[in-house]
């Protein structure tokens, strides 16, 4: 058996893969948070709850309608996206003229409501969601066994992140979005329907969270707390990366997942806290975050 720095190879690669998977979720969630923050100027505290909702909608589609994983991967983001659209139109839009902190408080309240409702209905123990048959089993890569589903999660997350990056950086819609982030009244003066753009952005960011939720469903059990467990760490990721850049969020998300995985190998006691320690160091060295523009 090969050993690297005194650690057995399979253990090291196994934890690296777990780290990459966690990193994939950090990247998708922090990406959605940054895009929403850029245009709406609110931190969407409900992001974790909507991620959880994505997983639950997948579970419901399977158990109530018999629609499997691949359907869920398309339908769940759509359904949760529409839910987000309704939230934005009915509640969040009233806050744009107020201090940012009110957006945080409102979405925190929404997160409590959503999580509480799911906990009432389904309890907090969690329910299993099967890996789709096409992705069962594992592939021997020579140095380790790669469970197919986990490989797929990293791949799908990368595609989703790069797709979002392309959409924002390379398309006309993305150009409008970036312009509105810089100066919304000016873009509106050019005849662009900015409120609609804002609504679509919120729905899009939320749909990305739901997509991540569906990917997460077979890995973690589907339970009402899965969102809040993640979101606190994602906030640290956002502070580390800064919310200025799309690519920044993606890179920060993945690399922090990997750092967490490596810590699990070399110093397991600190694996839960390492991201927060990194955050403290970044705050000391670069308060605006690694990719942040302004304080």
């Amino acid at each position, binding site marked *: 058996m090969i050993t690297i720095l005194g650690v057995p190879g399979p253990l090291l690669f196994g934890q690296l893969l777990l780290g990459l998977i966690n990193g994939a979720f950090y990247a998708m969630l922090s990406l959605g948070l940054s895009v929403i*923050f850029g245009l709406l100027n609110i*931190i969407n505290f409900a992001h974790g709850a909507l991620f959880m909702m994505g997983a639950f909608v997948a579970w419901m589609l399977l158990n109530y309608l018999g629609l499997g994983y691949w359907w869920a991967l398309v339908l769940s983001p759509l359904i949760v996206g529409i839910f987000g659209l309704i939230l934005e139109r009915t*509640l969040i839009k*009233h*806050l744009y003229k*107020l*201090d*940012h*902190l*009110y957006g*945080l*408080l*409102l979405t*925190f*309240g*929404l*997160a*409590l*409501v*959503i*999580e*509480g*409702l799911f*906990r*009432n209905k389904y309890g907090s123990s969690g329910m299993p969601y099967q890996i789709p048959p096409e992705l069962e089993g594992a592939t021997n890569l020579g140095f380790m066994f790669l469970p197919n589903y986990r490989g797929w999660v990293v791949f799908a997350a990368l595609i989703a992140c790069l797709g979002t990056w392309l959409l924002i950086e390379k398309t006309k819609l993305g150009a409008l979005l970036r312009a509105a982030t810089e100066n919304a009244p000016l873009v509106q003066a050019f005849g662009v329907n900015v409120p609609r753009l804002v609504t679509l952005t919120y729905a899009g960011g939320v749909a990305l969270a739901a997509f991540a939720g569906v990917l997460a469903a077979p890995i973690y059990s589907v339970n009402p707390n899965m969102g*809040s467990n993640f979101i*606190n*760490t994602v*906030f*640290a990721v*956002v*502070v580390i990366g800064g919310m200025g850049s799309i690519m920044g969020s993606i890179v920060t998300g993945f690399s922090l997942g990997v750092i967490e995985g490596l810590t699990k190998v070399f110093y397991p*006691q600190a694996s*839960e*806290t390492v*991201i*927060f*320690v990194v*955050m*403290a160091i970044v*705050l*000391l060295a670069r*308060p605006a975050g690694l990719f942040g523009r302004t*304080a």
Partner: protein
Amino acid sequence: MTMEATTQVGIGLPSAKPVLFGYTSTQAIALAILVALVVLSPTVLYPVFLMKVLCFAMFASAFNLLIGYVGLLSFGHAAFFGMGSYVTAWTAKYWGLSAEVAILLGGLTGAALGAVFGWLAIRRSGIYFAMITLALAQMVYFFCVEAPFTGGEDGIQQVPRAKLFGVISLAPDMSIYWLVAGLFLFFFLFVHRVVHSPFGQVLKAIRENTARATSLGYRPDDYKLIAFILSTFISGIAGGTKALVFGIATLTDVHWSMSGEVVLMTLLGGLGTIFGPVMGALIVTAMENYLAQFGAWVTVTQGAVFVICVLTFRRGVIGELGAKLKLAL
């Protein structure tokens, strides 16, 4: 970046002259009513419930010092409350310290932790400050889950109600009630005194216009840090007091939902009002007691109250009342 609601009411009103400790005559009357309620209510209400309210009122007043007067929204105050609770419980149970020393150690723990977290977090403001404090508090939570001294999921149980000054027994509910009531009134007055001191005036100046306060020669970060440490000290005291009253310190006290709860109390009562946090603590604690039998509906209701508060009455119960009566309460 300022909280818009706080500038509309409360301390901003240049109304009547202060007569006592910075209280105007109407506020002094309201304070007298509050003191009377604290003294008389255990004759009609269950003292343990009242002590819970008073502990949370202390906690919320400490939190309000930051959000209401400095404009800093900390989403991690559970860390200071919970660590205060753990340290008081541990020292009272295993070191056999008397009540006042155990509680003081709880407060000092909160302050020490607050000094480090504040030092890190005040580098950013607004929502970043909120996210950083939340993340740091989450780190404390994970630490408490792992660390042996907290007892993990069980917490520290069967904490004795240590004797006050080593002589006065606090075992009967009504004895410890007077200690809790005394601590509450002391820190309630203390927060108000801080806000109305020259130091408090500088805090308000920083909140309103940081650049101008800086140009006048004040260092905003120093003032923010001192306010943060004061707030975390009182939070630790509140947590420690709660641990002695209930004889238990658990992970619930350091969990992020506790941070959310103190935000809710302060928001519901009225950010930047004197009596708001007390009112908020009363409403939220009563609501929890009543809804406890319905399981997760507590969370749903709390969330709904958050949403309704933010959308319809951002000044909170006391803030709206004050605005209606044209009084700074």
